[in-house]
């Protein structure tokens, strides 16, 4: 089932949806990624028919569903907090949609057993929701929706209340359902790792607007603006003056430090002969390496370690280069130990020009 959203607008208090346009193709796993308050849940509720959009159209397989009530849209919905029916056992929760459809008892039981077994919760069938853990509740909520075999499923942060093992299990299950049953998924989350690990395509959302849509690779390698870049982990964002632009290579002056960047990307508008522009560019912290002065690199800077944050498997190191700018570098924990880094130590950092993404270009012709 394909979903097309055409210019949907809606406002409610401080939240609003502004000219939302996106398409979830049939059998696609589409993720909307955005911070809290971006309007992700409001968008899902509008697609469900819980709220009515003020303008725009929502099309399911080409059919405008604006006037179709929620129960007849045929869209599955897994809310953020599971919202299991507390007066029903796990089995009755999962059977709910099937009973509403009047499925015969024997078929009902077999189908419920199958879905519960697929999610590894058959042994919980007779328990009430109040006795389940967050992860178990989320599995039951998913089973309840999957039992009715919707062709499009909306998932509102479905993995946020789960432990890593359950998260991986649910991720695998969702991908399997997508490939085996051809179910389309629209999944919203604020977790970029979750989004990149599961999506065929991603839309980044902020303040009720879709900022960028594309494949995970497209978005990660070519963020459209500063917000998307920051949200995707581009921690090194600088403003600079383009001082040279030739053969697809830029030289950007950032307070005296010359950084080489490859021309291109969604934020680069190009420069003509004699034109000098200001630009904002970003570099992912995992694209910068701690190295030595002998290495050949387009961007090689000497600096001192300002500090570091040990995050378990990785360590985030802050390096202040001679011109005063601070670069954030991510190292694997063992590499950090091997490099014997400490505050005040002199180090060299390097990154290639392709890692420097121009996010926006402003300015005028140089006089």
């Amino acid at each position, binding site marked *: 089932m394909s979903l097309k959203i055409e210019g949907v607008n809606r406002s409610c208090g401080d939240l609003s949806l502004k000219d939302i346009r996106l398409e979830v193709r049939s059998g696609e796993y589409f993720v909307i990624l955005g911070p809290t308050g971006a309007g992700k849940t409001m968008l899902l*509720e509008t697609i*469900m028919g*819980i709220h009515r959009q003020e303008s725009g159209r929502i099309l399911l397989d080409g059919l405008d569903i604006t006037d179709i*009530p*929620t*129960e007849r*849209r045929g*869209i*599955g*919905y897994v*809310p953020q*907090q599971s*919202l299991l*029916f*507390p*007066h*029903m056992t796990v089995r009755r929760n999962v059977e*709910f*949609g099937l009973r*509403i*459809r009047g499925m015969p008892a024997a078929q009902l039981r077999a189908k419920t057993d199958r879905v519960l077994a697929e999610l590894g919760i058959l042994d919980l069938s007779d*328990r*009430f929701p*109040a*006795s*389940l*853990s967050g992860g*178990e509740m989320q599995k039951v909520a998913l089973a*309840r*929706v999957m039992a*009715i075999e919707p062709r499009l499923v909306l998932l509102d942060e479905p993995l946020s209340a789960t432990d890593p093992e359950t998260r991986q299990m649910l991720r695998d299950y969702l991908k399997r359902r997508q490939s085996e049953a051809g179910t389309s998924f629209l999944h919203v989350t604020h977790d970029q790792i979750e989004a990149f690990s599961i999506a065929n395509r991603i839309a980044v959302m902020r303040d009720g607007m879709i900022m960028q849509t594309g494949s995970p690779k497209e978005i990660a390698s070519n963020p459209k603006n500063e917000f998307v870049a920051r949200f995707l982990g581009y921690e090194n964002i600088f403003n600079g003056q383009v001082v040279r632009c030739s053969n697809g290579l830029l030289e950007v002056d950032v307070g005296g430090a010359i950084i080489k960047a490859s021309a291109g990307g969604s934020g680069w508008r190009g420069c003509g002969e004699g034109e000098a522009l200001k630009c904002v560019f970003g570099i992912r912290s995992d694209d910068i390496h701690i190295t030595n002065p002998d290495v050949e690199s387009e961007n090689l800077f000497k600096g001192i370690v300002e500090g570091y944050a040990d995050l378990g498997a990785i360590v985030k190191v802050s390096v202040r280069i001679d011109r005063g700018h601070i670069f954030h570098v991510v190292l694997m924990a063992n590499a950090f130990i091997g490099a014997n880094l400490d505050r005040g130590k002199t180090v060299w950092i390097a990154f290639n020009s392709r890692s420097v993404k121009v996010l926006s270009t402003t300015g005028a012709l140089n006089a």
Partner: protein
Amino acid sequence: MSWLRTRSPFMIASAVLGAGMVIFLMLPIASSIVGSATGIPGALEDSGTRNAIITSVYCASLSMLFTMIFGIPLAYIFARYSFAGKNFIEPLIDLPIFIPHNAAGIALLMILTPNSMIGGFFNKLGIRFVDSVIGIVVAMAFVSAPFMIRSAQDAFISINPAMEHVARSLGASELQVFRHVSFPLAARGVLTGCLLTWARSMSEFGAVVILAYYPITAPIDLYDTFVTEGLSRALPINGLLIMIAIVILIAFSRLLTRQSRFLRPTEGRS
């Protein structure tokens, strides 16, 4: 004394004041039961008293049914929807609690007497309110309906509307959502409303005595006996009515406990 040493002054003060309230509430009831215990079997043998109690139980049950049928949908509307005039209508629901009950009886009499427009209309259909069971039920329902509406409304408000949305996304119509999700989850509040409505109806005197003196209900029988035959004859009826109230209260409490069992964890969370 060790209990006193391990508790804070606030806790001790609260316990003392609370105990005072319990005594205040229980002492008259206990003294009525003790003072009338030997006369209760005799009161039960009196056909007039027996009939009055039966009339009260019957009419209070009908009043409860009436307020359920009309009050629960209203409570759901108040809990779930906003509409023009809601802020004006909603507080009016509590008005019957605030006005003196004999004033409520007179207000009902004004519109239900056969020579009024509404009373006249029903009179043509053969339905009389003055001095009839229907009149008693109407008077009881009028003064007790706010308890049903408010209890049910609070219960519906406590249900996350998103749960109802989920039920609809699973294919349930609004009516099916109400039947399978909202009402069962609000049942505890509705049952509480039933208990309060029934109890308030059973004990209603002021409105009933004005609209429908006959057939005589238990509170009117008690009042009549007290006025005409004195305290000693009224005491056993008084004890009997209190005993009935206690039995009903215990029965409802058990029902409420059973009804809410699914909300408690049956096993520890893993």
